[in-house]
């Protein structure tokens, strides 16, 4: 049976087939009725949160589909399914172990979620909650998948499909786990410097956006994005409703993303985090609409949605550290950053969905915001870092936050740039001009995402009914008819 395993998943899996220590522990405890209720209570909330975050995959998919042209709509579906799958397997194989095991630089225990002994000691940073380890895995994996999804926002409509696959393996198995370990996995930035990032403005969103920048710089803009004179052109996506669906799903998912980062329910903290999240997002939408209106004179639908995302990204780090009243401020500032950032970036590089701004710039802002607004009671409760500038008058925490941002950016950018560079030199990053013009759906997947739009009565192509079997034509039942006799 060991053979089956290895045959299928390679030697690495070997460790996986030892007796299921930890899983068994939970079971025994339950069997002997010594599993405390608190485990179930905390696990339920964190699992609910994890599922909300998993649903965000649909959010990212439709945000991207909406901002793509119809000829590139289908590939996003294949992309999101592939990436989500790879993330799951890699994060199980090694990602989780690197991210949450013990160690300043990276964890080394819990590959394949096996043989780590007591979970509370093996993954100490999550020790404050007694939710089962599988629960914590589901939650943390969902974060990894979100971070990976963010990477591709800049690459729509021209990237080769294989790039998704290759980078996903590296990202979910190595880059994300290590970088996030530093920030909220018990690594040096968090433990030694006291960096504050409650739910991942840096650890999830900035990391994703950094990968997005690394690939964009080597991928280049879509054909037609910049005229011969270098001026940017609008390449409108094909469906604002799909975009809206994506935004609404993401917003919903964020109520798992931030409040779930309490990793439990029994401390009664998660509802407050939800409140803080809502207030920031609301302010972000309004500020973004106002800013776009002021700059361009129209109520920009896309900016309304991006404003929500940007504000949600910004409140992610502070959501567990700040008082509710600061949320609208943090969100509103993110809402102003979004349109300005998008307009500025659009002049030079082609970021179709505004990921660099919404997840990058706003991720930075959110991380820094902790240095300004973190309240004493919450700094103390979370036990990382100090209260913010407005309480202490000191720039100390702000500096720590800035250092964290720079470090993470530098680390992720370097590794990602090298990875994409290697891909470019070997497999290639970009489809041909003809393929790009035909659209990725037909050229990468052999079929349009909306076939009827491109093929006339496709089911009839090459179809000639035998004279005999033309069926009798009657009148559709649903239809009453008015006869116009033949002249």
């Amino acid at each position: 049976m060991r053979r089956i395993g290895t045959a299928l998943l390679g030697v690495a899996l070997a460790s996986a087939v030892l007796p299921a220590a930890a899983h068994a522990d939970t079971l025994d405890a339950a069997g002997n009725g010594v599993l405390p209720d608190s485990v179930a209570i905390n696990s339920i909330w964190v699992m609910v949160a994890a599922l909300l975050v998993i649903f965000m995959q649909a959010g990212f998919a439709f945000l991207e589909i909406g901002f793509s042209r119809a000829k590139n709509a289908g590939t996003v579906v294949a992309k999101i399914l592939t990436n989500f799958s790879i993330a799951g397997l890699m994060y199980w194989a090694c990602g989780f172990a690197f991210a949450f095991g013990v160690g300043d630089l990276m964890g080394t225990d819990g590959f394949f979620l096996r043989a780590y002994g007591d979970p509370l000691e093996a993954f100490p940073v999550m020790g404050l909650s007694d939710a089962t380890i599988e629960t914590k895995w589901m939650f943390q994996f969902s974060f990894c998948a979100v971070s990976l999804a963010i990477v591709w926002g800049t690459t729509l409509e021209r990237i080769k499909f294989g790039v998704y696959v290759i980078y996903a393996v590296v990202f979910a198995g190595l880059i994300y786990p290590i970088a996030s370990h530093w920030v909220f996995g018990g690594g040096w930035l968090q433990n030694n410097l006291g960096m504050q990032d409650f739910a991942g403005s840096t650890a999830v969103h900035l990391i994703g956006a950094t990968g997005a920048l690394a690939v964009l710089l080597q991928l280049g803009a879509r054909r037609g994005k910049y005229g011969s004179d270098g001026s940017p052109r609008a390449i409108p996506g094909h469906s604002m409703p799909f975009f809206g669906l994506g935004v609404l799903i993401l917003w919903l998912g964020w109520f798992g993303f931030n409040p779930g980062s309490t990793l439990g329910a029994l401390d009664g903290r998660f509802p407050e985090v939800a409140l803080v999240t809502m207030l920031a997002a609301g302010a972000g939408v309004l500020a973004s609409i106002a800013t776009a209106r002021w700059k361009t004179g129209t109520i920009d639908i896309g900016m309304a949605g991006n404003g929500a995302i940007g504000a949600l990204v910004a409140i992610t780090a502070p959501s567990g550290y700040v008082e509710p009243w600061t949320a609208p401020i943090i969100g509103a500032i993110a809402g102003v950053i979004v349109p300005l950032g998008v307009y500025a970036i659009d002049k030079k590089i082609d970021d179709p969905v505004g990921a660099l701004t919404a997840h990058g710039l706003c991720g930075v802002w959110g991380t820094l915001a902790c240095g300004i607004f973190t309240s004493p009671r919450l700094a103390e409760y979370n036990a990382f870092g100090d209260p913010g500038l407005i309480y202490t008058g000191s720039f100390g925490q702000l500096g720590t936050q800035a250092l964290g941002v720079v470090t993470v950016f530098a680390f992720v950018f370097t590794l990602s740039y090298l990875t994409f560079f290697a891909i470019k030199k070997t497999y290639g990053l970009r489809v041909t001009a003809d393929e790009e013009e035909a659209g990725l759906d037909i050229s990468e997947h052999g079929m349009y995402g909306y076939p009827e739009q491109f093929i006339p009565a496709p089911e009839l192509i090459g179809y000639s009914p035998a004279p005999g079997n033309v069926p009798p034509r009657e009148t559709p039942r649903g239809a009453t008819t008015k006869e116009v006799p033949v002249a």
Partner: protein
Amino acid sequence: MKKIEAFIRHEAFEPIRMELMGLGFPSLSISEVKGSGRQKGITERYRGAELTNWLRPKVKLECVVASHDVQTVVDAILKHARTGQIGDGKVFVMPVEEAYRIRTGESGEETLQAHPEVAAQATA
């Protein structure tokens, strides 16, 4: 035989169709086109970038009729398609050399349209 091609506003089509049917011209085809003419361009905005769209959606009406019916049909079109504002469109008349009714294979003018009285009932 002549072919009448008219580029009109969407809302003009239905009254025209009804009148033509009443007059015994039930047979016609339309398609969606985008047109530019004296009408103004619309400046659209997307994530900051601007693009001026010089094209407006119009309906193209095609109707082949016997030469002696051309004026009737053209008049019906002009009557209903006219708002007096820029963007009303144009009507063109072009020669047709032969016509076939696929169903019967017959050719010639009589294949083109239904007879008035017939059509009359139709609209009844």
